[in-house]
């Protein structure tokens, strides 16, 4: 804030000198201070999320749990592609070096409506089929970012740790047995890399667009049938791509 005050004073002082010296009408261009990215910020974002999940093996889960162990032959992988809105907030801090290199750290969290389902046949109980549904409703991350500032425009890349809140459901009706509804939840840790551009359009505000790629690897989730209370495992792998835009409020020290 002091720098801004000094800059304004300097600009006024230069203008005053020009008038006093009765210089020609073509005065020197006014002093313009570069935007300084050093500081902290908080803001909100909204965008789209596009996930790819591979779930193995929902057929075995249903048939071997509810019909009889060993009913299933072969391996079935179902790959729903959830997509939806991603919206949330972020808090971060940056430091800009004299070389215009900017480094920082940011914590972000998004809620999401990413959801998709697929039908898969149950060969052990024809013509029955199971509805496999996958949701991702929570997507926080803690990342470092590095960028280069072209005055009030910052090009940056980021990377760090991420978490996905996942829900899975395998439901349907087995002929001769009845309805079933296997459900499972998981908090899956992984990593994220991405990049974007941040444009400070005033002293305290900036807008940005960003692309992020999340990878969460492969893990197991325990699914429990809400009807029979029986349980079984499925494994899944996933990655998520997010494109988002947002606004940040920048501040550094008391006052604005």
């Amino acid at each position, binding site marked *: 804030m002091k720098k801004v005050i000094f800059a304004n004073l300097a600009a006024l002082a230069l203008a005053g000198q020009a008038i006093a010296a009765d210089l020609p009408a073509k005065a020197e261009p006014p002093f313009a201070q570069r935007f300084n990215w050093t500081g902290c910020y908080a803001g909100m974002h909204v965008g789209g999320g596009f996930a790819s999940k591979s779930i193995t093996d929902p057929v075995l889960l249903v048939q071997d749990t509810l019909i009889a162990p060993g009913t299933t032959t072969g391996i079935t992988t179902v790959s729903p592609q959830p997509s939806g809105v991603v919206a949330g907030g972020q808090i971060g801090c940056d430091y800009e070096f004299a070389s215009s290199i900017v480094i920082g750290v940011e914590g972000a969290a998004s809620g999401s409506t990413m959801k998709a389902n697929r039908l898969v046949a149950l060969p052990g109980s024809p013509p029955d089929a199971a509805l496999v549904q996958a949701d991702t409703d929570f997507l926080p991350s803690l990342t470092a970012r590095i960028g280069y500032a072209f005055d009030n425009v910052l090009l940056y890349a980021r990377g760090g740790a991420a978490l996905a809140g996942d829900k899975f459901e395998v439901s349907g009706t087995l002929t001769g047995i009845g309805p079933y509804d296997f459900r499972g939840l998981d908090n899956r840790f992984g990593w994220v890399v991405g990049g974007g551009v941040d444009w400070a359009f005033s002293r305290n505000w900036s807008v940005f667009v960003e692309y992020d790629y999340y990878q969460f690897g492969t893990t197991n989730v325990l699914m429990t049938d809400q009807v029979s209370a029986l349980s079984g495992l499925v494994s899944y792998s996933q990655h998520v791509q997010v494109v988002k835009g947002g606004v940040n409020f920048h501040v550094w020290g008391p006052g*604005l």
Partner: protein
Amino acid sequence: MVLGYALNPWPSASATHIGVRVCESSQGLAMRRDGSDRNLRFAVALVEIIVLAAWLTMGLAPSAQALPSFARQTGQPCGTCHTDFPALTPFGRRFKLLGYTVGGGLFRTTPFSSNAARDVQAEYDKLLKYAEPVKAPPPNADENSKDWVPPISAMAIIGFTHTQADQPSPQDPYNPNNNLVYSPFSMFWGGAITSNIGAFAQVTYNAPGSVAGPTPTTSPFLHTWTWDNTDVRFVGTANIGSLDFVYGITANNNPTVQDLWNTTPAWGFPYAVSSFFGPQAPGTVIEGTFAAHVGGVGAYTMINDLLYLEVTGYKTLGFSEQNALGTDPFGAPGLLGGVAPYWRVALEPHWDRHTLMIGTFGMYSEIHPWLNVAPVGWSTAVDTLADKFTDIGFDGQYQYQGDNYWVTLRGTYIREFQRLDSTFTTLAASTNPTNLLNTLKLQASVALGADNRVVLTGQYFNVWGTADAGLYGTDSVTGLALTPNSNGWIAEIAYIPFGVSKSFGWPWFNTRIGLQYIYYNKLNGTTVGAQDNNTLFLHAWVAF
């Protein structure tokens, strides 16, 4: 009982939801009376509270501060640090940040006073002075000549509770409804120990027969006196380049009790609740489950009076240690395995009369449940498997100081992921191996006036999560698994007669009178009977 009555609406609901309601508040010494004279009792109770309030207001007219020992130390009236008790102003947050060490005389002018707050630069300069008394207390002949008084205070609450429907049996020694309670009683150490070390430490008396755990009246580990909210701090300041640091170490016994904002559970609204609630809405682990059952040590810093960072690790005290401190070990669902990490990040920009905060907090805990808490045959053994809880919270606050009024808006959301390895596998008490639990609170408050302050507060609360027949039961009509889903409203009007004055008797007394109503739209997954738990709570609080 933790912090007297300053608890969240769900005081310490077990995160595993496998026990009965855990209420750590005392039900005190209410007298047993027949139901036939309820109207008379209601009238008598009202008269008693009004008389007490009048006595406090007139007989002790000069009272002033929230915790009188803080007032004696700082020379400030309660309105400097509190919009309401215990809701903090910007100055109050910095008093806590600086380890309760700020002395009298140096801060007689509220940094955010009405006139000065109009000048941002002046406000900035004053904020920088927050750290000065800690960094280098200036010599002061007058200070040296003053007598030292130990920073000890006490408080007591008298409260009358009416619920829409009578409480289920057994109620003894209480009435089915319309109970007047004269407890708890707490004593505090509140203030500086040295120029760099300060403490807020509370011990509380719960009347015999109080409800204090999953085995309310039969637990062999109920106590009358117990340690309560405790926060001991070491604080220092530093300047590195253009950065101003206030840094410190906190040792405390309740996750979030050390926090500066009233958006986190330990100091969240409502600040006083009746102990005559019916069934409680479930809460996350970080919402008081391990209050007074743990010890934690952490480091924190405030950078440029803007960015607050904290990391603290918690570990449960051993069974014997908890018992020795007056805490019922079975009041928590079990013991923590290892150290539970807690984090906090908050960004608090402030300008003119406005203060904004956006933050996040959370904790990861692995809980090994008790294997047997039965009154007979209980055991100190815990399961080798642990339930794992990941709590992630987000909060925000906006505060505006007007001429003789404060406006405060708060919001808190907590998402808890539960991996119930023990509860599902060993105890077979949950239907699902994993569950989600979410809590949301949105609050608005207006404090009108300096002295004779009236505080109007409204809060919407919502709890929602995964259906689980093992934890929440089944619907009696549909047979489907119930959810933790609960929501409703809380409205409160409080009267604080002495907000800013320093008249006769100051700074030895303080008082607050509140009338609170809690409305349940849904409780534990059903609207059926939810409103039977609607609660009217009239209370008078006095500290001295």
